[in-house]
């Protein structure tokens, strides 16, 4: 294995770890910073904030994104909000409580030290964003407003309409623009990282392809930061943007970087269902709808084709209210998602393909009046109407769970550095803070914590010893990586088969959704592990990628990503199979309580599963990082 597999958690009491770590970290003096070149791949909340902050500190930064502008990274689509334990509401919130909720929400599969640091830094993020001009919602007094989110018992979520992600991203995009103008950051839009270059066992550069001109380039640097987001698109249909992919992190994995908990994927319960085969993506409807909507399906299969109005009250099954009387329609994401799948599997699902459940506002409209509902959810009802053509004030909405976020990612230590020295991974691309399930309004928090405050303070720990060690892009390792990328591009174009990319991607997605989606079992996972290589083999035999490499070629860029998904999917299934327990979003049917809840196995599996690539066609090697809980007490989640 390259480097060391050690989380390097600082000693001392939990609440002092970060402070004492900062006290003992190495530093790079201001006049030495300009001697270091840093590569940041990705320009979302994590990458954008990191690139801007590092540029501000005086490092020379090169930032890459595949989009045509840094502002289009998918963080922009986050709706709900961002958590922080400011306790502005005086409702008993504290850093410890935010930490505890996050680690419990993650079903005790994340590191105490990392999560505590996240909760601590959350407050600084709000300060920073306000100073940058993020227009958070405010009270009439002019002070910041909060709302409660995702079943939390306190109001700690800061928000900017339903566009919090957009506003936070534009905040760091603007900070990035300022550094671009100042000349400290050089931006490379429409440039995709296709390989990581390791020189003398350290990450020292990348090979990229300019998507517009097709030109392949080498970039040497002192350190490489990956902020390339999640891999939800492995399922083909997800709430992710079309371009989201696993390529950068997967290429790093193939170069020796450990990949942790790849099977941990979050399914969001309230998305608009699939309407047909043409569908290219799924749209999320804010979870807040469940505050007033009632979820139901017909009691009998025979009624599923009937118009909802024709099904009398007595023939409806309000299954969440029935199963979870105290939480009812507000049961957590993973639980309500699985419940929806269950009733659809029983053949009681509604809408095209029988994959949907009703979210009914009739009672709420009767109780509060249509105007109040319009006031609360008007824009969501409009989105729903645009997509489905149905008026949710008159007929119940149809919803279904969809892949939303991936908790797994490249393994990192407390400094956010991978086992490969010099390779840092931040944001959704790493695995560190959300365990087996992410709480609402925590993704934005993590991305910005990593980029604005953690990485700029931990990076010097590595850089301080690296003066003068930057290789030249002419080094043989770069030569080899470039040839590797070139060969792969040519190989994709040479297949010249008959099937389209999307057809492979769709088939892979469907397979994973069935076998490695909301619930998994050993038999299904083994079947998937058998089918994925077959599909991959077919892909390399029969895919058709038109056009050529020296051109703007959208099919070619997507082909590379699908090819990586076809390999990565196998890793996901292996991880899901190996994790022989249920935890958070990872639900193994063999491991459930008599009531059908996730049953953890803390004895055997309170650990991070980190996978090491051993070569094509070889089984990857599993490394386990045991999780130690010194402060919190492991409990069974119950939402009855």
């Amino acid at each position, binding site marked *: 294995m390259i480097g060391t597999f050690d989380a390097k958690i600082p000693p001392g009491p939990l609440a002092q770890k970060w402070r004492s770590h900062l006290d003992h970290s190495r530093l790079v003096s201001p006049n030495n910073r300009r001697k270091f070149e840093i590569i940041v791949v990705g320009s979302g909340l994590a990458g954008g904030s990191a690139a801007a902050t590092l540029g501000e500190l005086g490092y020379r930064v090169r930032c890459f994104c595949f989009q045509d502008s840094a502002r289009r990274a998918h963080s922009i689509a986050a709706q709900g909000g961002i958590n922080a334990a400011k306790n502005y509401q005086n409702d008993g919130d504290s850093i410890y409580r935010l930490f505890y909720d996050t680690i419990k929400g993650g079903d005790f599969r994340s590191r105490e030290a990392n999560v505590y640091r996240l909760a601590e830094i959350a407050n600084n993020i709000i300060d920073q964003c306000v100073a940058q001009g993020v227009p958070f919602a405010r009270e009439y007094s002019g002070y910041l407003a909060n709302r409660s989110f995702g079943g939390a018992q306190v109001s700690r979520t800061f928000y900017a309409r339903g566009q919090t992600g957009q506003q936070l991203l534009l905040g760091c995009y603007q900070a990035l623009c300022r550094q671009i103008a100042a000349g400290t950051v050089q931006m490379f839009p429409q440039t995709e990282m296709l390989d990581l270059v390791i020189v003398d066992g350290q990450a020292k550069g990348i090979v990229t392809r300019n998507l517009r001109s097709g030109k392949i380039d080498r970039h040497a640097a002192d350190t490489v930061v990956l902020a390339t987001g999640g891999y939800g698109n492995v399922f083909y249909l997800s709430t992710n943007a079309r371009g989201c992919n696993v390529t950068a992190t997967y290429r790093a994995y193939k170069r020796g970087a450990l990949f942790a908990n790849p099977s941990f994927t979050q399914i969001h319960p309230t998305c608009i269902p699939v309407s047909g085969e043409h569908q290219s993506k799924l749209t999320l409807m804010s979870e807040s709808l469940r505050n007033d909507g009632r979820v139901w399906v017909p009691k009998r299969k025979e009624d599923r084709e009937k118009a909802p109005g024709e099904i009398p009250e007595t023939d409806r099954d309000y299954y969440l209210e029935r199963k979870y009387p105290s939480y009812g329609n507000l049961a957590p994401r993973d639980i309500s998602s699985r419940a929806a799948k269950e009733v659809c599997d029983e053949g009681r699902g509604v809408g095209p393909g029988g994959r949907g459940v009703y979210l009914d506002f009739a009672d709420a409209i009767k109780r509060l009046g249509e105007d109040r509902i319009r006031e609360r959810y008007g824009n969501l009802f409009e989105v729903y109407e645009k997509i489905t053509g149905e008026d949710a004030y008159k007929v119940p909405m149809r919803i279904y769970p969809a892949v939303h976020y991936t908790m797994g990612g490249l393994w990192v230590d407390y400094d956010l550095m991978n086992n490969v020295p010099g390779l840092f991974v931040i944001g959704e691309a790493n695995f560190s803070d959300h365990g087996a399930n992410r709480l609402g309004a925590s993704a934005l928090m993590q991305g910005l914590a990593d980029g604005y405050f953690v990485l700029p303070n931990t990076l010097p720990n590595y850089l301080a010893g690296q003066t003068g060690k930057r290789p030249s892009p002419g080094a043989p390792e770069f030569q080899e990586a470039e040839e590797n990328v070139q060969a792969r591009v040519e190989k994709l174009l040479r297949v010249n088969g008959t099937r389209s990319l999307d057809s492979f991607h769709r088939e892979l997605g469907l397979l994973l959704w069935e076998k490695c989606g909301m619930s998994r079992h050993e038999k299904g996972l083994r079947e998937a592990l058998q089918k994925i290589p077959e599909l991959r083999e077919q892909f390399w035999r029969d895919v058709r990628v038109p056009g050529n490499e020296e*051109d703007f070629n959208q099919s070619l860029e997507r082909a590379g990503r699908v090819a990586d998904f076809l390999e990565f999917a196998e890793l996901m299934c292996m991880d899901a199979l190996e994790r022989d327990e249920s935890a958070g979003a990872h639900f193994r049917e063999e491991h459930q309580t008599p009531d059908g809840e996730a049953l953890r196995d803390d004895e055997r599996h309170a650990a991070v599963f980190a996978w090491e690539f051993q070569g094509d066609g070889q089984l990857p090697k599993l490394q386990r990082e045991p999780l130690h809980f010194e402060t919190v007490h492991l409990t069974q989640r119950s939402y009855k």
Partner: protein
Amino acid sequence: MNFQLRIWRQPNRKSPGKLVDYEVRDISPNTSFLEMLDILNENLLRAGKEPIAFDSDCREGICGTCSLTVNGEAHGPDHPGAVCELYMRKFRDGATITVEPFRVGSFPIVKDLVIDRSALDRIVQAGGFISARAGSAPEANSVTVPKHHADLAMEAAACIGCGACAAACPNGSAMLFTSAKVSHLALLPQGHPERESRVLKMVQVMDAEGFGNCTNTYECEAVCPAEISASFIAKLNREYARARFRRSMGE
């Protein structure tokens, strides 16, 4: 549903382009406009022809990547909304639909329907930010912002940077885009220290990028997917006049 399509094809920036006729059949009314183009591309691929290049990413109207002029309207006929939020049920069965790129001199065509909008990035780089170093921020609630100003700033900040305003403007002007950023930051107390230099620099770069001038036709706000009001252009004019005046007074 069946449709006749006339789509702009152009191999690259320098070569001339033209409208090419296509046909798609058996499209479900629940298909989005971009998914209809995906289907057309699959058909082209099967026929051994080159697919049509067009941009999109989030496909839920927030990233601002998609940029098509459909039947002469930026983002198509279903306003407000980006073209990724346009669904085929909005068209008559058998309709002929013309698809062109956003046409603005400052947005050169890359290929077919894909354009280069880096000019918008450069306008923001000129000053569309608040210089707040990470770590230097005061406690968030130490500065209050009147709710009305915060709401108005949010309305302006909702811009998705798609460039439809310039594409629809008879003059190819990017005033709505620039005014949204200038207004957003000028409305907040945090943005005040750089208020004058920001508007002067951003307007200067906007002009230098070759965008046209505003003649108050309000076509921009009619097609804006984020419903940015043209009253922010009035605000920009006000901010610009104020900055010029204060500069001339030596402040």
